[in-house]
């Protein structure tokens, strides 16, 4: 009996020995474990002006007495090298104010919201995200409102009416630092086939493509692109405060009725010069030459530029024919923003860092190293930026674009509807019924 107990204890000890043995190897490597900061939540509101005061206080002291500020920053994977350089410059610029330990982490802008909201306390102090995530981040209390140099930041990005500022604002408060203004879509085309006049109208483009035995493309089965047709026709989609959508895309009273738009989409889909393709198929089509124009975003600009060479060009979206008129297609304007975690231990310094990586110099640098379009007006107006066809096309399209503010229920009904349109509505279902179904889905209550 006794023997057994001893044995049990030995086994338990052995098991823990096994665990600790590997623990030693692992824990030394992981330096970035964020320490839990429950207290930070309560004193964030008062913490903001701190760094300036502290900075002034410490500026006169010897360098050894400088406080050490530890910050974590998340950015896209492909930006890491560039971000590291920006961080080094930041450290030098503020070297007389504090010592910085800045850890860089990887988190794609498109998934930042999900990762941050899983555990806000463990998330980075400064992180980049796409502007459509702003509302949810604000509602969850994850974002610290911008409180340092707010007016200067708004002015640098074109004033409070500019798209990038609107995209970073919720309820009249600026919650994030605009970083890029290039997350929207526009029309790529091959100059070998199209003249600058051809690309003004979708009908003309399809005609040219059909005559050449080629095709132009736009993804119908995606709410992101589908928006172009309905918004362009003057139908409306709005996000309400409770997270549901207000949508009149099935309207029978608007100047251009919902069914007219649907019919126009069916006509486009039926045209031999048109095909609805997703991202991967677009890239493949551009490379093998079967696609000579298409609606897509800057992330595929390199592919188009490489495949078409000197014939590569881009412009705003064309007009399309609906109910007998030519209507300019609208679009979602997409921005990438930098946010400061409201639960950060060093909210003030985090704000300085966020401001730093989105300032004029670094937006220019971001354009030069990665080809990302600046949100900063001055940076955007520079000759080199204007010379980039994709960025210039986005600027043209921005006149017809709206900031993406839609509730989560928008995406799947529109995808279904778009897929039916792309397939040519083979069942022959009444268009009004299809639209009613889609709108019912879009406006459905959350949960």
């Amino acid at each position, binding site marked *: 009996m006794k023997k057994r107990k001893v044995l049990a204890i030995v086994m338990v000890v052995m098991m823990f020995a096994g665990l600790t043995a590997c623990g030693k*190897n692992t824990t030394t490597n*992981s330096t970035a474990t964020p320490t*839990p900061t429950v207290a930070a939540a309560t004193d964030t509101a008062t913490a903001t002006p701190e760094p300036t005061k502290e900075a002034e206080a410490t500026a006169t002291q010897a360098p050894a007495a400088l406080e050490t500020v530890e910050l974590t920053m998340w950015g896209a994977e*492909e930006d890491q*090298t560039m971000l590291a350089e920006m961080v080094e410059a930041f450290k030098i610029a503020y070297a007389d104010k504090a010592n910085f330990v800045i850890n860089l982490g990887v988190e*794609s802008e498109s998934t930042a919201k999900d990762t941050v909201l899983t*555990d806000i306390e463990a998330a980075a102090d400064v992180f980049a995200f796409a502007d459509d995530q702003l509302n949810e981040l604000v509602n969850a209390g994850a974002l610290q409102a911008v409180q340092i140099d707010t007016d200067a930041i708004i002015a640098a990005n074109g004033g409070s009416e500019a798209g990038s500022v609107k995209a970073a604002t919720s309820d009249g408060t600026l919650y994030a630092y605009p970083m890029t203004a290039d997350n929207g879509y526009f029309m790529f085309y091959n100059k070998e086939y199209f003249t600058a006049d051809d690309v003004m109208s979708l009908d003309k483009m399809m005609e040219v493509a059909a005559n050449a035995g080629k095709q132009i493309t736009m993804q119908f089965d995606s709410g992101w692109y589908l928006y172009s047709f309905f918004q362009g026709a003057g139908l409306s989609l709005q996000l309400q405060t409770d997270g549901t959508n207000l949508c009149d895309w099935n309207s029978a009273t608007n100047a251009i009725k919902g069914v007219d738009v649907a019919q126009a989409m069916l006509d486009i889909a039926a045209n031999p010069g048109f095909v609805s393709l997703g991202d991967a198929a677009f890239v*493949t089509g551009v490379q093998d030459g079967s696609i000579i124009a298409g609606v897509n975003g800057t992330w595929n600009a390199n592919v188009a530029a490489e495949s078409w060479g000197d014939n590569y060009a881009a412009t705003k979206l064309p007009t399309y024919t609906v109910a007998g008129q030519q209507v300019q297609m609208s679009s979602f304007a997409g921005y990438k923003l930098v946010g400061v975690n409201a639960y950060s231990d060093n909210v003030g310094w985090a704000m300085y860092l966020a401001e730093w990586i989105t300032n004029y110099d670094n937006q220019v640098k971001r354009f030069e190293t990665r080809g990302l379009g600046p949100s900063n007006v001055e940076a955007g107006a520079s000759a080199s930026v204007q010379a980039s066809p994709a960025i210039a096309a986005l600027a043209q399209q921005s006149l017809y674009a709206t900031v993406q503010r839609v509730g989560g229920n928008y995406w799947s009904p529109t995808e279904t509807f778009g897929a039916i349109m792309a397939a040519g509505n083979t069942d022959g279902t009444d268009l009004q019924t299809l639209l009613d179904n889609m709108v019912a889905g879009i406006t459905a209550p959350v949960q």
Partner: protein
Amino acid sequence: MKKTIKSIIRHLILSVLAIVWLIPIIWLFCTSFSAYPGINISKFFPEKWTLQNYRLLLFDTDTVAQFPNWFMNTLMIAVFTCIISSMFVLMVSYAISCMRFKMRKPFMNIAILLNLFPGFLAMIAVYFILKSLNMTNTRIGLILVYSGSSGLGYLVAKGFFDTISKSLREAASIEGASQLQIFTKIVLPISKPIIVYTVISAFLVPWMDFIFARIILNSGISSEQTVAIGLYRMLDKTLINSYFARFCAGGVIVSIPISVLFMFMQKFYVEGITGGSVKG
């Protein structure tokens, strides 16, 4: 004659199934040798073949692709998890199968009930427990998560132990062997097939897991991630055009340890089955 037709039909069905099953793997394998770094769906086989993707993946790491780090992280987690959870499973199975104690029946019922719940249900709770212990973003945290409840998966091994003749164990205990001696000297040596099965399945859980790793390793430090997460990140829309071929190469390399483990273990698997246990 009838037999031949039946056989042809059977083989036809089998080959169709085999093709359906093999095509994605062949495509992945071929694409991993493609000279074009992005995704090209117009051709099944790449136009130009190259070993470049493997070279880049293994020796030329950048901020996006840190495959050697990911691989070592995953391998380490998988090896430790494999050892710990194999021990758990075999010991629990032995206890349940060969020993008689009061809680045996209730324990079996509870264990089966608990095992019916998907582990992901407790994911957030697990995350916050680990966080309070400061073990998120550590390999040891993941090892604990993967091996923690593995003992509940005792059913298959218990079934195997049940088939081992009771007289063997009785004979050993008459000779004076303790339970531990019976377990290690009598039962384990004749249970190689089930050990192999347990080891392989225990290795596969952390090797293939995405969800737990994604939620527990949330610091965003690329070099600390596992293969599954790292490779998945390469598919981001801004990265896919330059990393897809490398993603495929990663997919091929990931399958190597599993294949090696299986080939190595297979010998014992067959031996165990054909060796026979009770002699004479």
